[in-house]
């Protein structure tokens, strides 16, 4: 049943994963996501699930691959440098069409970077990240409640499309405490194992192989096309975004994650001072709501777009592709673990950009 609780983002995600059916967690400590493996370590045994603290992120994602390949609802979580290490496994998982969930509580980079919040993993999340042609379904939630709601259904999406799903948090999300409504426990006890899973029960011609090796070019090309056909379906069916005061907006601010909350307060301040600003917040960052951007760009009253991010400008590239030269696209960001205030955004807009 539903429950109202005050939870840290990381703990809320962990509990929502369990309620969404997750029964296997493999992870390695890294700040700022440590509450997820810590929570899973005691919670998984309570629901009859599996928890392992692996020897590395590389190993964790491969344990996910093994468990998920045999049909389990398996996940891992990490933060930026750890996600870089997981990219090898994620590529294999994508190639072998294995469903799983990966949580990335992004910290600043490059290299060891810092442990403060950032959004500098946008590229390695939405552009594939590892080797080869593939994508993931990537969500960029902006509140602990939205983390819960997305995590709760993330496995269903992963299994529906047989692909890895990433929840792209921006570091702050993992650490903030908010009141959340936790959904009831999903029951999968009577759901049969998926019809592709290598669960050890088949032999001879019926046997199943989880694999991403295709040595014949034609076969691999067919897989590449099959994967991208799925991404087209994602674009059509899974795009999620939220708009705030965009109806008459002249300046469309765009941001995802907690930055979108700061941007929303900036929109309010700008409106108070007579600037017609609005906010377009992508909730899925892959698929990217390009169509919505394109439609706004065709409106005569829209003067420009401003992408606000905790990076040197990553999502702004997708905004430019979507706007396709119809309107100017500007970028305003902080990085290194610094976070802008609403006033910073207002000041940027009022001064007329760079």
């Amino acid at each position: 049943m539903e429950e109202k609780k005050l939870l840290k983002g990381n703990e809320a995600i962990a509990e929502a994963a369990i309620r969404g059916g997750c029964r296997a967690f493999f992870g390695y400590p890294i700040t700022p996501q440590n509450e997820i493996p810590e929570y899973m370590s005691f919670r998984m045994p309570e629901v009859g699930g599996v928890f392992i603290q692996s020897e590395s992120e590389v190993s964790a994602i491969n344990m996910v691959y093994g468990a998920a390949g045999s049909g389990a609802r398996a996940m891992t979580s990490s933060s930026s440098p750890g996600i870089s290490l997981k990219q090898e496994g994620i590529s294999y998982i994508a190639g072998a069409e294995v469903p799983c969930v990966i949580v990335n509580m992004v910290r600043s980079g490059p290299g060891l970077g810092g442990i403060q919040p950032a959004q500098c993993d946008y590229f390695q999340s939405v552009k594939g990240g590892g080797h080869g042609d593939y994508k993931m379904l990537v969500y960029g939630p902006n509140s602990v409640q939205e983390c819960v709601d997305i995590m709760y259904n993330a496995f269903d999406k992963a299994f529906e499309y047989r692909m890895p799903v990433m929840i792209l948090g921006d570091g702050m999300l993992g650490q903030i405490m908010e009141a959340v409504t936790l959904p009831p426990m999903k029951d999968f006890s009577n759901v049969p194992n998926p019809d592709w899973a290598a669960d050890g029960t088949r032999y001879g011609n019926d046997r199943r192989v989880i694999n991403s090796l295709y040595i014949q070019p034609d076969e691999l090309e067919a897989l590449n096309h099959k994967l991208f056909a799925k991404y087209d379906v994602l674009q059509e069916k899974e795009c999620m975004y939220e708009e705030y005061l965009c109806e008459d907006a002249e300046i469309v601010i765009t941001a995802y994650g907690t930055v979108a909350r700061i941007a929303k307060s900036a929109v309010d301040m700008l409106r108070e001072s007579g600037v017609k600003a609005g906010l377009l917040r992508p909730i899925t960052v892959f698929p990217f709501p390009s169509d919505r951007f394109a439609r706004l760009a065709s409106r005569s009253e829209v003067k420009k777009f401003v992408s606000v991010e905790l990076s040197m400008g990553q999502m702004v590239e997708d905004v430019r592709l979507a706007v396709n030269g119809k309107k100017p696209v500007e970028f305003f960001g902080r990085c290194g673990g610094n976070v802008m205030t609403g006033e910073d955004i207002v000041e940027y807009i009022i001064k007329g950009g760079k």
Partner: protein
Amino acid sequence: MAKIFEKPKMLTDKPTHYCPGCTHGQAHILTARAIDKLNVKKIIGVAPVGCAVFAYEYFNCDMQEAAHGRAPAVATGIKRVIPDAIVFAYQGDGDLASIGMAEIVHAAARGENITVIFVNNAIYGMTGGQMAPTTMIGQKATTCQSGRSVALNGYPIHVSEMLSQLQGPCYIERVSCHDVKHIRQAQKAVDKAFQNQVEGRGFSMIEILATCPTNWGMNPIESNKYVEEVMCSVYPLGVYKDTTKEEA
């Protein structure tokens, strides 16, 4: 007349891609024959990267193909969510002792209840004969063309000796397949490694000394002689760990 020797049922009919005389075929047979003897309902194998990358086409059960070196982690994930399945990882020396050293050490240390078949032919076969972590001092490879030098490349890794120092493993034995007598001994070892898993005893690994006629530049018969005369002295055969004996 009755059949007294035939191909194991746990192998598919697909002809292997291995070079003539390569021990991988023998290691597949030993593994498959051991599984044939088990009375279990669920089997899942994990294939490596290297010459045995297509092992998933040869073992007649559900299989997962792992990334290079990660087979013990993949096998761990499978075994933990399907504990009543017999899960085995099949790995070569580059896969297990070089790029996947962390995965094998920690699977062993956890006492993961899986069976690992480790094929050590002291060279990278699939990529064309480069130096392996188990290439012996003086042995030639395409990345140490005058022979492995201690000054330049350090020493080969003795995996069975090393892993047997851990508390986690149940059973570790090094075997060879260079003649019929040794194949029979190897079969017993592989059988035991699987039986241990059925009995829930934890991590078992069999290191099989193997030939690579193609990259060693020898014919299959010379290669087996080389295993007997050279490899077996550098990598002594025998049981390195067996906790089932301690219990008895």
